[in-house]
């Protein structure tokens, strides 16, 4: 594929000096995309779309928001009541955060199922995990800004996690707060960082796409592109497919914005922060629930380390372990389509994550799903154990033991035969 020749003189003049038009052309037309991508491959571009939506709605919200402990809550209420379309901007932003996590979680599990983390896509995978971490930090700090009860106490609980570290813990927490409790200095720095981090995410997304274009998209068969017959240009084939998916996505997103805008929220956050009274039941936003369950499930000390520190380490380990799965997975086959045993463990992992999420939302001493004799805390411990077993034991062992189904010779062959499942 040779470099394009531009006939338009203005285009050519610009492109000779800054080859940005060639770059876009290269990315959109010449970038060979596997011709068998399913709708599971829509969620990356959807996440990109929401990132832009979040940045735009956020910039306009800031024009009416006051980052001060005495005024933040009222300024958010003013946005809701007095600012023209303020309610729309805020509900787009609030529900956009949930949608962002839904898309990114589906995107991650897609990568897990089809082995998209395996060579040569390890760095692409790493950048993705960094994006997830940056998203979590951004979402957490954004949730503090309305200065409601959940904002305040969520921030208190999460920042107190850092006090678990020996020696440096307490000074570290005081430093994070800029005082002796969550207060105005904390609100101001969270506001500053909440504005900064989305642009860091944007930078990481550029690296993510760059890495993607270097190693090319994976596909449902996990077999690399071998001949030109295996691929089609990104535009118009996948731009139109992405656009259709975006239409479906917008129906769901805007349903929540217009008809159930507080579905993902907590009523307690419409009460202004009160440093003297903790709400009876503190829960994080849904996208943190599985991690919260892992944190809480460690209620015993081990090797001289207190439960609190272990819980924090386990929670961080739940994400850190994702960095090393390219080497923990010993299977030569990427796609779980051709892995009859691992496929079922993957289903178990998904169920496990939902169980963790459920446990994170309930009080530790409650019965699990109404089952007398099984406490939420116990179930959370089992689910935490399974989560780590999956990555640290099942992945390496199953990869070695399992006999995969025969792979198609090429993407083209699998498509012409009607797919591997036919």
């Amino acid at each position: 594929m040779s470099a394009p020749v531009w006939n338009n003189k203005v285009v050519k003049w610009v492109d000779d000096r800054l080859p940005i038009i060639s770059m876009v052309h290269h990315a959109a037309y010449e970038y060979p995309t596997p011709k068998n991508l399913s709708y599971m491959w829509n969620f990356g571009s959807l996440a990109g779309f929401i990132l832009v939506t979040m940045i735009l709605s956020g910039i306009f919200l800031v024009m009416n928001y006051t980052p001060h402990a005495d005024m933040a809550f009222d300024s958010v209420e003013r946005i809701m009541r007095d600012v023209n379309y303020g309610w729309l901007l805020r509900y787009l932003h609030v529900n956009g955060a949930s949608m962002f996590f839904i898309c990114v979680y589906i995107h991650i599990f897609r990568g897990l199922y089809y082995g998209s983390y395996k060579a040569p896509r390890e760095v692409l995978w790493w950048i993705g995990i960094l994006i997830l971490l940056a998203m979590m930090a951004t979402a957490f700090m954004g949730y503090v800004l309305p200065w409601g009860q959940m904002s305040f106490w969520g921030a208190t609980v999460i920042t107190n996690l850092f006090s678990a570290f020996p020696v440096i813990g307490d000074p570290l927490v005081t430093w994070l707060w800029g005082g002796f409790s969550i207060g105005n200095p904390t609100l101001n720095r969270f506001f500053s960082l909440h504005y900064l981090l989305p642009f860091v995410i944007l930078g990481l997304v550029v690296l993510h796409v760059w890495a993607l274009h270097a190693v090319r998209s994976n596909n449902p068969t996990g077999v690399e592109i071998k001949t030109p017959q295996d691929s089609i240009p990104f535009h118009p084939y996948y731009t139109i497919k992405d656009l259709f998916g975006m239409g479906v996505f917008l129906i769901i997103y805007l349903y929540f914005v217009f008809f159930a805008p507080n579905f993902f929220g907590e009523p307690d956050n419409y009460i202004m922060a009160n440093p003297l009274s903790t709400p009876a039941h503190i829960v994080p936003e849904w996208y943190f629930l599985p991690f919260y369950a892992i944190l809480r499930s460690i209620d015993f000390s081990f090797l001289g380390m207190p439960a609190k520190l272990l819980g924090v380490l386990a929670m961080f380990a739940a994400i850190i372990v994702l960095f090393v799965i390219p080497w923990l997975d010993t299977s030569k086959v990427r796609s779980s389509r051709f892995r009859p045993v691992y496929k079922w463990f993957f289903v178990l992992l998904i169920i496990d994550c939902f169980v963790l999420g459920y446990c994170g939302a309930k009080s530790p001493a409650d019965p699990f799903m109404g089952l007398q004799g099984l406490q939420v805390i116990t179930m959370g411990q089992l689910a935490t154990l399974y989560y780590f077993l999956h990555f640290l034991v099942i992945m390496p062992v199953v990869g070695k033991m399992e006999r995969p189904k025969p792979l198609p010779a090429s993407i083209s062959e699998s498509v012409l035969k009607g797919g591997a499942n036919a």
Partner: protein
Amino acid sequence: MSQTVQSSGDTPDENRRDFLTLATTAVGVVGTGMALWPFVDSMNPSKDVLALSSVEVNLSNIAVGQAIKVMWRGKPVFIRHRTEREIKEAEDVALNQLVDPETDDARVQKKEWLIVVGVCTHLGCIPMGTATGEPRGDFDGWYCPCHGSHYDSSGRIRKGPAPLNLHVPTYTFLTDTSVKIG
């Protein structure tokens, strides 16, 4: 680099160049660190925050058996006027039954007044039990609703995930009915 030096056979020159590289790097690292420090330190508590570090409380209005919350450094301090029974309960506990062993004596200046920072040592929630009618846990003290920690009538952790007793702030009795916290 070493090749050019070798060709001239001038080893002292090589040492001098290594020294310059090392010294420049060291000055660069230290200088960058020094330039970064103001940014890091600007996030520590500022002077006006530090200035708000003591508060005086009048105790004459707190009846026996009652407790109040006062704000100190942006967080609550519990002041409980303990009953005879509560004092006895706190003193009678064997130290080997405690998660964070401390005698009641070491935690109070006057037996009838228990003064502790009202922040759960687990993850910083405010335990319940100060206002009348709130649950006080299994040990007649405080109960933290967030993750289920129980504190006794000396503010010591007895059950649940919190690792430490409620902190005792520095305080001095100015008179019999007035205390300065901080």
